[in-house]
């Protein structure tokens, strides 16, 4: 390593050598704590998950590496249902939150100078934990919640069971509502930030060249926002795909999202099911990783396109 570094070869005197060595290694030293932490917590944990998914579960009956558990989990009758249900919830929550987030960001842009309280409006939901939002959604939208009581008071229903099931339902409406509350402000914040930075430069040029408001939006702003929207999409999708507590607490028992399914496997008293649980965790990781790779590729593609357009 040291021979390859131009700095270490050129240092002649002892005093400056140490300083230059430090300068050369400084970035590595600075990231070392993070790398060690990630290495211990993430890589080791992931490695142990992979090992357990291959049947290496200390304490359980057999300790031979095998793909048996992958086969069993993948062939189980409701695995595909769980997978598609997970994709469905993640996709609906993500698409809706991104769409609404972009719309809100544009509305805010068109309003020009914004008072501080408006910013608070989307900053507050971001810091509220998911658990609190779950309780809010439950108290508002369950069959005996505030909305149902209001409907009863207005005479729309005569029994709580007549109120449509919005929490614990098969369509996952309650789950999606929680994610919307959390993710629309997130999307808004990121998109609005990008919008603020680009609009000043391009807006006047576009108007000078005779563009209308609609043209400004569709021809200039949206294409420029592409990478931002895509990254927001992938972050929120990956999160929703792997998150546990929301579907666990207000999902239907009929269909389990993958993280919930992994949890139920893990909690079975029979320890061999830990392997099945880890199989699902590994699959979730692989799918999320796939999304990260797709993201970087698409991003590179877009960057190449925009650079080509400028030339």
């Amino acid at each position, binding site marked *: 390593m040291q021979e390859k570094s131009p700095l270490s070869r050129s240092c002649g005197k002892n005093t400056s050598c140490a300083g230059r060595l430090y300068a050369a290694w400084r970035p590595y030293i600075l990231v070392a704590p993070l790398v060690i932490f990630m290495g211990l917590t993430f890589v*080791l944990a992931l*490695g*142990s998950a*992979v*090992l357990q998914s*291959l049947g*290496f579960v*200390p*304490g359980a009956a057999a300790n031979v*590496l095998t793909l048996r558990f992958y086969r069993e989990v993948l062939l189980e*009758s*409701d695995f595909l*249902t769980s997978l598609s249900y997970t994709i469905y919830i993640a996709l609906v929550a993500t698409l809706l939150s991104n769409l609404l987030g972009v719309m809100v960001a544009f509305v805010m842009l068109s309003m020009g100078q914004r008072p501080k309280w408006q910013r608070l409006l989307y900053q507050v939901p971001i810091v509220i934990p998911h658990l609190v939002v779950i309780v809010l959604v439950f108290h508002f939208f369950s*069959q*005996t919640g505030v909305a149902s009581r209001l409907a009863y008071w207005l005479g729309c229903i005569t*029994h*709580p*069971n007549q109120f449509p*099931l919005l929490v*614990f*339902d*098969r369509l996952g409406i309650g789950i999606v509502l929680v994610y919307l509350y959390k993710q629309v402000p997130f999307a808004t914040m990121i998109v609005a930030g990008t919008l603020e930075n680009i609009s000043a430069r391009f807006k006047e040029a576009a108007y000078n060249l005779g563009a209308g408001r609609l043209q400004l939006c569709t021809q200039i702003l949206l294409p420029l926002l592409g990478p931002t929207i895509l990254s927001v999409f992938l972050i929120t999708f990956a999160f929703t795909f792997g998150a546990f507590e929301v579907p666990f607490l207000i*999902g*239907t*028992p*009929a*269909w389990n999202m993958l993280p919930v399914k992994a949890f*139920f496997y893990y*909690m*079975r*008293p*029979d*320890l061999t099911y830990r392997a099945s649980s880890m199989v699902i965790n590994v699959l979730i990781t692989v799918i999320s990783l796939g999304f990260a790779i797709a993201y970087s590729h698409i991003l590179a593609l877009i960057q190449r396109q925009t650079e080509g357009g400028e030339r």
Partner: protein
Amino acid sequence: MKKIIIFLAVVLSVVLFTACARPTATVAPNNFADALRTARGKTVTFYGWGGSTAVNSWFDNVVAPALQAEHGITLRRVPMNIDEILNKLTTEKQANKMRGDIDVIWINGENFYTAKTQGLLYGPFASRVDNFTRLIDPEAPDTNFDFGVPIEGMSVPLGRAQLVFVSDTARLPVFPASAQALLAAARANPGQFTYAAPPDFTGSAFVRNIIYEIVGFDAINNAPAEKEAIYNVIRPALDFLNELEKYLWEGGRTYPADTPTLSRMFAEGQLLWTMSYTPLYAARKIANNEFPPTSQTFLFERGNIGNTHYVAIPFNAPAKDAALVLIHQLISVAMQAEKLDVNNWGDLPVLDLARLTAEERTKLQGVDSGRGVLPVDELLRRRLPEVHARKIAIIEELWQEHVLRR
């Protein structure tokens, strides 16, 4: 890829197995008198489910002071779900940690089966507990089998639970006393009956109770613990549950995820019934004003499933002598009577009434069991045994495949 896996395997095994020294587990005294002597002044740590304030209060405000006053032992109670406790013990077993920090655990059923077969328990120890040999019937089925699993002195009964149904006489004057009557009641009141989806503990017991009603206990008890065989036996019961499903809440498209949710729905007037594995549950809920005062407990005519819950000692308990004394204390007449009191916990006693002195019997029978509940002798008379622990998970799986996700 293979290299990476091998590398990780090596790293993991180094971390897990070589880093720790190998101390030996503490030993317990051979007789109860010695345990009493050496345990004095120690702290005994109890790990168990902590989700009920009534149960917690019995441990903290009844057992702990008595244990301190009579035997000079301090009780430390740590609330933790049994599956997490077993996870912890499994990890400690893997790491060869021979001095843990749990002295007594609260356990039964599938979890006892797992703990016993995985070698997570210390024992046999029951014969070294004075009150066990003096007050408990050695011939009683639940002294020898926990959910069909032979106990062999590895745990001691602490209390008895039973599945009960609770309804409101003001809204449902005639209680359904059989599966067929339940179907009729659900048909007459569509959307106002349901049960918690297994693997919820109580919902799972309800499904087994329906199986007993439709195909009988012997049929399921004699079936081998294999999925195919059990499916063939319980098929008529699953068909019945599918027939019932049409008239359940939300048409059975979804089920409440747990029994607290079921009870909340009953309390808020959505449902005509709820159920509990705690037989005096209704009394407590009426006393809290959560359930209407007209609520009443009932059973099926042919009986409801009951089980017994136990205490056991982990293999690496640091104070096994104090653990023996705590268990002795838990099954004393005084503690069992306080436990039966609905103002404390309302859990059925495990003592053999025939072995008690007249004075002790009076003490146990004079306990306040509250409103809306059934007398203890009726509960014990209409009590059906549990099936083998291994069959429960299979039944739950079959229910999910053939009823929930049909």
